[in-house]
């Protein structure tokens, strides 16, 4: 009897806690719990559910939705970033086949105009005798970002979680950041962006980078809105070959969804490097060299756009 009672109590408590975890929230700022954190407020309304053991448990209605409705984050919170995290990305060049799923997923998720690619999959060949390879290039989210240094109005800024974000409500469109970025990763809205009604109506948030505005700059943002929910950026989930790996330097791990690695080990084992290290920008994106390739370089040529077929050079 006693056993039953205590185990039932335990069970109810763990049930509630894991229900919270399952629905994506926790009551403490534990970096390992899902990231909705203490942001989803209990509505007070509870619902009864059937557990595995045939017990009836109660759960707050707010946590029942597939993705809990997160309250809107204020602009100052968006400028500060998610506490306790330092995002990092690892791109495995030995797996990239120029499939382009990353580009379509990113462009679709952020409703980019044709011609605007936040991710550019570049066909690279460093020198005459070196190997050609496909290099997906995102924003490097540098630790000493040249773009942030030159912005005159604080429209682009570095957050404490490492992400460099753009506030389209502040940007004056001077394009100095585009000139300053050595990775040419920034993109400009030369005209009114083509948006669906739904997106155009929603209030602007730096973290979703939507809706885009005419006359402002935009770039890859490491999907901080997804990170807040504990999910991976769109490109990481979309890549069929697991090329992109995203994670937290503080946790020392990166994952592409299916595989998870200890970041420090991965970089050491596979001799990871960063682009243009000698410029001193300290990027947050690491590349694993294209050795022991899964696919030959040529298999990516079939996916090249018509324009790139002509300009296949540096």
């Amino acid at each position, binding site marked *: 009897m006693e056993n039953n009672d205590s185990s039932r109590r335990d069970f109810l408590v763990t049930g509630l806690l894991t229900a919270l975890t399952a629905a994506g929230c926790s009551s403490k700022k534990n970096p390992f719990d899902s990231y909705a954190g203490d942001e989803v407020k209990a509505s007070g309304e509870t619902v009864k559910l059937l557990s595995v053991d045939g017990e009836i448990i109660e759960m707050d209605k707010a946590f029942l939705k597939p993705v809990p409705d997160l309250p809107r984050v204020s602009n100052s919170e968006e400028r500060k970033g998610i506490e306790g995290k330092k995002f990092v990305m690892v791109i495995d060049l030995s797996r990239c086949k120029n499939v382009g799923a990353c*580009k379509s997923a990113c462009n679709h998720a952020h409703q980019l105009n*044709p*011609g*605007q*690619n936040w991710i*550019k*999959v*570049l*066909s*690279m060949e460093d020198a005459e005798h070196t190997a050609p390879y496909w290099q997906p*290039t995102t924003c490097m989210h540098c630790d000493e970002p*040249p773009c942030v*240094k*030159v*912005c*005159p*109005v*604080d429209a682009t800024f570095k957050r404490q979680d490492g992400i460099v974000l753009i506030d389209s409500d*502040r*940007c*004056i*469109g*001077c*394009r*100095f950041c*585009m*000139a*300053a970025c*050595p*990775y*040419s990763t*920034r*993109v*400009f*809205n*030369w*005209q*009114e962006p083509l948006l669906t009604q739904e997106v155009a109506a929603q209030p602007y948030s730096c973290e979703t980078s939507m809706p885009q*505005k*005419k*006359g*402002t*700059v935009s770039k890859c943002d490491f999907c901080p809105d997804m990170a807040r929910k504990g999910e991976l950026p769109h490109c990481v989930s979309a890549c069929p070959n697991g090329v992109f790996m995203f994670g937290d330097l503080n946790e020392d791990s990166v994952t592409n969804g299916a595989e998870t690695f200890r970041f420090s080990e991965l970089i050491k084992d596979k001799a990871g490097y960063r682009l*243009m290290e000698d*410029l001193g920008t300290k990027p947050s994106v690491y590349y694993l060299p294209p050795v022991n390739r899964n696919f030959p370089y040529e298999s990516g040529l079939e996916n090249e*756009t018509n*324009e*790139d077929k*002509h*300009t296949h*050079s*540096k």
Partner: protein
Amino acid sequence: MIWTAALILICLIGAYAYYRQLKYGLVVTNMRDYVSWGIYISNFVFFVAISLVGSLITAIFRLANVKWATPLTRIAEIIAVSAIVFASLIIIVDMGRPERMLYLFLHGRIQSPIMWDVIVIGTYFFISLLLLYLPLLPDLKILIQFKEKTSKALNKLYRFQGSFWKGTADQLKISKKSITLLCIVIIPVAFCIHTVTSWLFATTYRPGWDSTNFGAYFISGAFLVGAGGVVVAMYIFRRFYRLEKYITEKHFEKMGRVVVMLALLYLYFNVNEYLVPAFKMKKPEEAHLTQLFTGEFASLFWFAILIGMILPILILLFKKGRRPLPMFIAGMMVVVGAWFKRYLIVTPTLLHPFLPMQDVPESYHHYFPSWEEWAIAMGSMAGVLLVITFFARIYPIIPIQETISEQHEKDEEK
């Protein structure tokens, strides 16, 4: 009249083009993600460069007691003021969100070279305005005196601006001291303005811009184009206002020497700027330099060097070349060459980013300004000329009182 009408027409076309740009966005230009800075920015640099002439002719020559330059001071100053005004206007035109201009003051980041540029340009504008106004005061007195020669409206303007100037010894003393102080202060500000503008490029990593030489390079270029501009203005005013007595052949001769010296100096900086990286041919710079010397931009590059520096030097080295008409031609060449030089500083570098240009539409690989860009650029230049024209119609383009005082001094010396 035709002159003014033509200028106004060009300005109106430019205004219409700008209206289109405001309506549709910067897509009406041919700037795209790689060449994100085009002729608006090269025009901006060009105007800032020309505006330095105020500090050269007016300030430096005054401080150095170069008496022959006195008739030229007002021409130089009005060119400077007009150019700096349109430099600010063209930079606003280039902004994607001009209505957010106030953010520069509300949320400005002091770490950004653009903020430094905003501060220096604003400061330089006010200083140049003061340097235009103070020496104008004695002339206003003369203008008010001869009120039967001017219209009623203009007379009112003159009275409002300078009726308090009586020419007393006290006033003269204060005025003289103030002008001297102004001349001293304007020189470092002028150096700052063009150095900071050059830092808009030199603070980036790009080949062709990543140069420690840029500050001095830009300033020497600015002095040259400013001097060239003054020569052109000298000639035109001399001819159309029949000022042969005041802007004499001697003035041309002396200015010619100044221009030659400045052109040689600028040539020296160009050699440093291009020859040294060409010797090393570092990978990011190789494509850029090859494109300038022998590639797509070669004709433009050699044109700018030849017309902007070498030919004027050759013309002006000889005494026969330092006569009014040849000097006018040389001056025009310097100005035109300088405009193309500024374009060559801004655009070719942007076509050679570190990473290959891929995954973008084909049009992103090239840049030739659209008609709207040309219209606005021409409009801004017409605007500069319009301001100078109107100023010359309202105020004496030669400082009357100073010329008189100098004449007296010369007579006394004799």
